[in-house]
C-alpha cells in the first residue's frame, strides 16, 4: 500500500530545530511527526497504527541518547525496520560506529548540511523503504 504522503518522525529536543525541520519537511511534501523526547517517540511508535517511513533522530536527547533509543526501537519488531537517519551536532567516531552498527542508515552532522541538502537524503531513504516494504 503506497502512502499518499510520506511521513517522517522527527525526534529532536531543541524546539527551534524541531520547528525548522518540521517546517522544511512539510514544505517538501512530507508529513512530520514531532517528538521532543525519546520516550515520547517510543510511546508513539508503540501505539501508532501507521508507522512513519523514516525517523529523523538527534543523538543527544534529554532523556536518552541515540544508542538507548535504537535499543528501545529494536524491541518492537515492526518499528525495527524503519530507517533511522541520525542528524546530530555531536559525532565522535565511536558514536557514529555504534549507531551504524545498531542499524542507523546514516549519521550526519547538522552544522555541515543545509536543510535543502538533507531533504533529498530523507526522500531517498523513504523511497528505499517503500520499495522494500
Amino acid at each position, binding site marked *: 500500500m503506497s502512502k499518499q504522503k510520506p511521513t517522517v518522525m522527527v525526534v529532536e529536543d531543541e524546539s527551534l530545530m524541531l520547528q525548522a525541520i518540521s517546517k522544511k519537511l512539510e514544505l517538501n511534501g512530507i508529513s512530520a511527526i514531532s517528538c521532543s523526547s525519546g520516550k515520547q517517540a517510543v510511546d508513539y511508535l508503540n501505539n501508532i497504527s501507521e508507522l512513519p517511513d523514516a525517523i529523523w533522530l538527534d543523538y543527544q536527547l534529554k532523556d536518552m541518547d541515540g544508542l538507548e533509543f535504537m535499543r528501545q526501537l529494536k524491541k518492537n519488531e515492526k518499528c525495527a525496520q524503519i530507517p533511522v537517519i541520525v542528524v546530530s551536532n*555531536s559525532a565522535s567516531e565511536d558514536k557514529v560506529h555504534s549507531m551504524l552498527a545498531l542499524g542507523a542508515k546514516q549519521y550526519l552532522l547538522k552544522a555541515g548540511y543545509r536543510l535543502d541538502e538533507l531533504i533529498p537524503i530523507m526522500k531517498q531513504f523513504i523511497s528505499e523503504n517503500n520499495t522494500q516494504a
Partner: protein
Amino acid sequence: MDSQNSQSVPQSIDQILPQSNSYVNSPSPGKISMKIKYKQLIIVGFSVLTVGLLSIFLYFSEKTVAYLLVGLIVALVLVVVETILLLLNSKVGVQTRDGISQLPKSFDEATEKLKASYFEDLEKKVSEKTKALTQRIEELNSEQHINKEAEEKALIEEAKEEATLTSIGEGVVVTDPQGKILVFNQAAELMTNWTASEAVGRFWFETVPAMDEKGYLIPRIDRDMYKALTIGKKVFSESIYLKRGSGKITAANTAAPIILKGQVIGAVQVFRDISHEKEIDRMKTEFISLASHQLRTPLSAIKWFCEMLINGDAGELNPEQKEYAQNVSDSNERMISLVNSLLNISRIESGRIIIDPKPTNINKLISEVINEIKVKSDAKKQQISVSVDSDLPLVNIDPQLIREVYVNLLTNSSRYTPDGGEISVVIYKKDDELISQVSDNGYGIPKKDYDKIFQKFYRGDNIIKIESDGNGLGLYLVKAIIESSGGKIWFESTEEKGTSFYFSLPLSGMQAKKGEVTLSS
C-alpha cells in the same frame, strides 16, 4: 675487631719495655747529691746512735771487754753496710762523697763502662725496635685507613643509591633476565601494595599483572619487560597495573634491558602513576564533546532558519531583506567554521586525533577537493590547474586528514589571490616521499610574517584588510596534521607576486595512530 686492634697497637715506646726505674729513668744530678747526703746523714746518725747506746751499756756493765768487742763488730758491720750501699748507687755518689765512699776509681770506671755500654746497646736496640714498630704502626694505620675509607665510600654509595631510589617518584623495578625481581623501590611499593621484602624474589609478571583499557589482561609475551628482555630494546607503554589485593592504577611505563658486554643481564622497569592525568584527559574529552554540541546547536538553528528565510519558505523577501538575511547566514558560517577548527586543534593538541592510513588514490582525492574549492574560485574567476604524477601508486595516508590539508591550502590560495588569479597544484614522487605543491599568484606573505604564519589565529597584515574571511587557524592545523603524519611543510613567497606551499609525506605511509576522534566530529 678494628677498634681492638687500634687499642693494642702501642702508642709509645714506654709501653714496649717494662717500666724500670734504674737505668732509663736517670734522675738529675742535684737530686742525686741530695739523696746521697741524706743517706750519709742516716748512716752517721745510726752509727752515732749505736756507739752511744753501746757506750751507755758499757758504762753500766761489768763485762767491758766483751761488750766493747761487740761494739766494735757492730761498728764494722755498719761501715761495711754503708760501703755496699754507696757502691750500689751511681758513680755520681762517688764524686760527691768523701770518706768511706772513696772506692777505687777503676772499680767505678768499670762499673761506669759496663753501665754505658749496656745502656748504649739497649738504646740501640730500643731505637731499632722503635723504628720498626713505628713503621709497622704506620703501615697498619694506613692500611686500616684505606680499608676504612673504602668501606666508608661503599657505605656512602650504598646510602646514596638507597636515598635516590627511595626519593624517586617513579616506581623502579630491576629484574634478572627471567624477570625475577631484584630491586623494588619505595615508589613501587606504594603504587602496587607490595613491600620490597615481599616482592624481591618473585617474578614481576605474576606479581603485578597488567590490563589494557578494555579490561583484558595483557599476556606475558606482550608485557613491555618481556619485550625489553627478549628484543633488547627500550619499550614504552601505558597500561593498567593491578595492585595487590584490590585497586589499580594507570601507569606510563618504560622497560629497558640492562646490557653488559652484549648480553642482556636483566631489565629495569620504570613506571609512573598517570591515573590523575588520565582522569583530567577524560574530563577534557567530555568537555570538548559537550562544548562542541552546545556551541553547534544554536549555530545550526541560525543556519537553517536563515536558509528558509532566504529561500522564501516564510514568505518572499525583498532584496534588502534577503541581503541582510544572507549576511547573517555568512557570519554564521564563519562561526561554524571557527568552532570546527578550534575543536580540531584542541584534539590534535591533546593527541586524540586518529590517524587512520588507507591505500589512497591521490588523484581522486585531489579531484574531489578541487570540486569543492571550485565553487569559491569560480566565483572569483580564478583558474585552477592540477598536475599529478601519472605513475603514483596508492599511497598509505589518512584520506580525511590529508584532504583537510589540501582544502585549507587551496582555500587560502583562492582567498588570498585577487579575481582572475591562477592556482596550481603539483603532486609528484621524490625518492621515498610524496611532494605536494600548491601555488598562487596572489598577495604573498611579507617577510616579517614568515615565522608567524603557522601560529594560531595569525593572519598576515597585508591580507587582513583585504579579506575579512579566515580565522587564522588553517595553517596551524595543516602543520599539525603534516607533522604528526611524519612529513614536513615549507613555503616560498614574494609580496604582491605569489606564494607556493610545499609539503612532504613519507611514501612508506603514515603511522597508524590510535586516537579517539576524527576531524570535525
